[in-house]
C-alpha cells in the first residue's frame, strides 16, 4: 500500500510535468496540424538555460539558492525558449505554410529542426549536468501540482474568454474563414508557439526540481515522446485531454518504476497508447471529425 501511494505521488508530480509539455504539443497541433518535433528540444533548451543561469548566479555572482533565484532562472528559460520558438516558426514553418506544403513536408521539417537544435545542444555540452537542489521532494511535489492546476485554469480562461483565445480557436477551426474575419493568422500561430514553448520551459524547470540529473538528450530521449503520447491519448487539440493524458502517462511510468519493472515502462506506455488509439482514434477527450467528400 505504501508503494502504491509513493507511486501515485511520484506519478502525479511526473504527470503534471508531462501535462505541461503535452499542452504545447497539443496547442500547436490543434492550430497548424503539425507534430512539432522540435518541442522536445525546446524542453531541453529550457533545462540548459535554467541550469546555466543558476550556475552563473551561484558560482559567479555568489548568490545563495533561493526562490527568487529560481524564478529568475525560470524567467530566463522562458525568454530563451520563446525566442527560439519564434525563430523556428518564422524561418522554418512559415515559409512552408506560405507554399501550402503537405503535412508530411511539415512533419519532416519539424524533425529536421529538432535534429539541428539537438545537434547544437550536443555541441554546447554533452556531459551529465546536475540542477541544484532548491526544495525537498515534498515541496517540489506540491509545487508541480499547484503550478499545473493554476496554469491549466489560466490557459482555459485565456482560450475560452479572451479575444485572442477566441481568435485562436477560430484559426484552429478554419484557417481561411478566420482570415476573412480579419484575424491575423501568422500572429495567432506564432502566439501559439510562444505559449507552447513557455509551458515547456516551466515544465522542464519543475521536472528538474525533482529529477536533477540531465543531459542534452533530456528532451529527445529521457522525456522523449511521453508528452506527445500524452497529448495524443488525451485527444490532441483538447486542453483538459492533454492534462488527463499527462497524468495517465506519468502515473503509469512511476508505478512501473515503484514496482521494479521500470525497464518495461516504455512497453507499457506505448502499448496502452496504441490500444487507446485503436479504440478511440481521436483520443480520450478528442472530437471525432468525419471525413467529408
Amino acid at each position: 500500500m505504501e508503494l502504491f501511494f509513493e507511486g501515485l505521488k511520484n506519478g502525479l508530480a511526473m504527470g503534471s510535468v508531462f501535462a505541461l509539455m503535452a499542452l504545447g504539443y497539443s496547442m500547436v497541433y490543434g492550430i497548424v496540424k503539425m507534430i512539432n518535433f522540435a518541442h522536445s528540444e525546446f524542453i531541453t533548451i529550457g533545462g540548459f538555460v535554467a541550469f546555466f543561469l543558476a550556475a552563473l548566479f551561484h558560482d559567479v555572482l555568489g548568490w545563495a539558492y533561493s526562490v527568487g533565484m529560481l524564478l529568475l532562472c525560470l524567467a530566463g528559460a522562458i525568454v530563451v525558449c520563446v525566442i527560439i520558438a519564434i525563430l523556428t516558426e518564422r524561418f522554418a514553418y512559415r515559409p512552408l505554410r506560405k507554399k501550402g506544403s503537405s503535412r508530411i513536408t511539415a512533419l519532416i521539417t519539424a524533425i529536421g529542426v529538432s535534429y539541428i537544435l539537438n545537434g547544437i545542444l550536443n555541441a554546447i555540452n554533452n556531459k551529465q549536468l546536475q540542477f541544484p537542489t532548491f526544495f525537498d521532494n515534498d515541496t517540489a511535489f506540491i509545487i508541480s501540482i499547484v503550478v499545473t492546476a493554476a496554469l491549466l485554469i489560466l490557459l482555459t480562461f485565456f482560450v475560452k474568454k479572451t479575444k485572442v483565445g477566441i481568435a485562436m480557436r477560430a484559426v484552429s477551426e478554419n484557417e481561411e474563414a478566420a482570415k476573412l474575419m480579419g484575424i491575423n493568422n501568422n500572429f495567432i500561430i506564432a502566439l501559439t508557439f510562444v505559449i507552447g514553448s513557455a509551458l515547456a520551459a516551466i515544465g522542464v524547470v519543475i521536472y528538474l526540481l525533482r529529477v536533477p540529473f540531465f543531459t542534452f538528450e533530456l528532451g529527445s530521449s529521457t522525456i522523449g515522446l511521453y508528452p506527445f503520447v500524452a497529448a495524443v491519448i488525451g485527444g490532441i487539440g483538447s486542453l483538459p485531454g492533454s492534462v488527463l493524458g499527462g497524468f495517465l502517462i506519468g502515473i503509469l511510468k512511476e508505478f512501473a518504476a515503484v514496482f521494479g519493472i521500470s525497464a518495461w515502462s516504455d512497453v507499457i506506455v506505448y502499448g496502452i497508447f496504441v490500444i487507446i488509439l485503436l479504440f478511440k482514434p481521436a483520443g480520450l477527450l478528442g472530437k471525432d471529425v468525419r471525413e467529408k467528400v
Partner: protein
Amino acid sequence: MLFKRMNKRNLVSTLVAIVALLAGCIFVQNGESLLWTKIISKILIFSIAALALNVVCGCLGEFALGHGGFLLLGYTAAVLIATFTKNMIGADFYKEFVYTTRGGLQPLGYLILTSDVLIAAVITGLFGFVVGIIALGRLKGDYLAIVTLGVSLIFVNITKNIPALGGAQGINININLGGSPLIYGIMLVVSIFLILTFMKSRFGRATLACRDDNIAAEACGVAVNKSKVLTFTFSALIAGLAGALYAHFNAFKPIEFGQDLSIELLIIVVLGGLGSLTGSIISAGIIVFYNLWFCTRSWVPEFFASNPKIIYGIILVVIMLFRSSGILGTAEFSWDWFYGLFKKLKNKLIKNKKETPKEVE
C-alpha cells in the same frame, strides 16, 4: 512478367547492369580494403531498407516512422536462426564447409545464409502484417506515423529486456562479421525485382490508386484496406530482409534500431525523393558514403563527425524548404531515358559540326 514488358535492348542492358553490380561486389569482397567492403556493404543494405520505407512513404502515401523496428525484427530473427542452424549441424562442420578461412562464404554458406535471411524476412513480414492490420485500418497521417514509431519502440524495448532476444548488449552471429557484399548485391537485385513486380501487380496499382485519391479508389471498387495492409506487409518483409542482412554484416545493440535509425532511413528516402526507388538507392549511397568515408577523413574537421545530427537536420530542412520532392522527385531511372541521353548528345554533336562551318563562312 517484368521482363516481358522490356524490349531486347533494355533487357540486355538490365542484365549487363546486374552482372556489373555483382562483379563489382565480388571485386570489393576480394579486395584488400576493409573500409571499402564496409562502405559498399552498408550502402547495399541501407538501399534495401530505404526501398522498403519508400514502398510505404512513396507508393502507399502513408508515413511510417518505425522501420527501424522491422529491421530489428529481421536482425533478431536472422541471428536466432543462424545460431540454431549452427547448433544443429555443429560448429566444426560450420567452420569447415560454410566459411572460407578469410571469413568469406563457401557455396554451401551462400545457401544457408540465403535461406536464413529469407526466413527472417518472412517472419518480419508476419509481424508487419499484424501491425498493418491493427494500425492501417483505423489510423492515417500523423497518427499512423506516431503509432508505427511507438510500435518500433515497443519492439526495441522488448528485445532489450529479454536476455534470450539480446538483452541490452544484443546478440550477434559471432562469426564472419564484416560483410560479404556479393550476397547483399544479390539481395538488392532480388528486392528491386520484387518491388517492381509488386508495384506492377493488381495490388500495387490498387495501392497507387489509394495514394492518389483514397475515396475515388474506394468508389471504383478497390479494396482500400486490403491493398494498404498488403503493401505495408510487403514493406515490412523487405525491411526484415535488410535487417537480416544487417545481422550478417556486424553486431548491433537493440537500442541502435530505435528512433534514430528510423529517422536516418526517412532522411535517405526524403533526400532521394518520395516514390523514387532509384532516388532512394542514390541517396543511401550519399548518406552512407558521407558517414563512413567523409567523416573519417583526417582533413575533415571533427565537427562533422561528432555532430551528424546538425548535418542531417540541415539536409532535411533545406530539402523541404527548397526542393520538397527530393533529388529525383518521383522520377525513375529508365533505359529509355539513359539511351535518350546518348541520342541527345549525338544530335548536339552533329548540329555543332554542321553549325561550325557556317560560322566560318
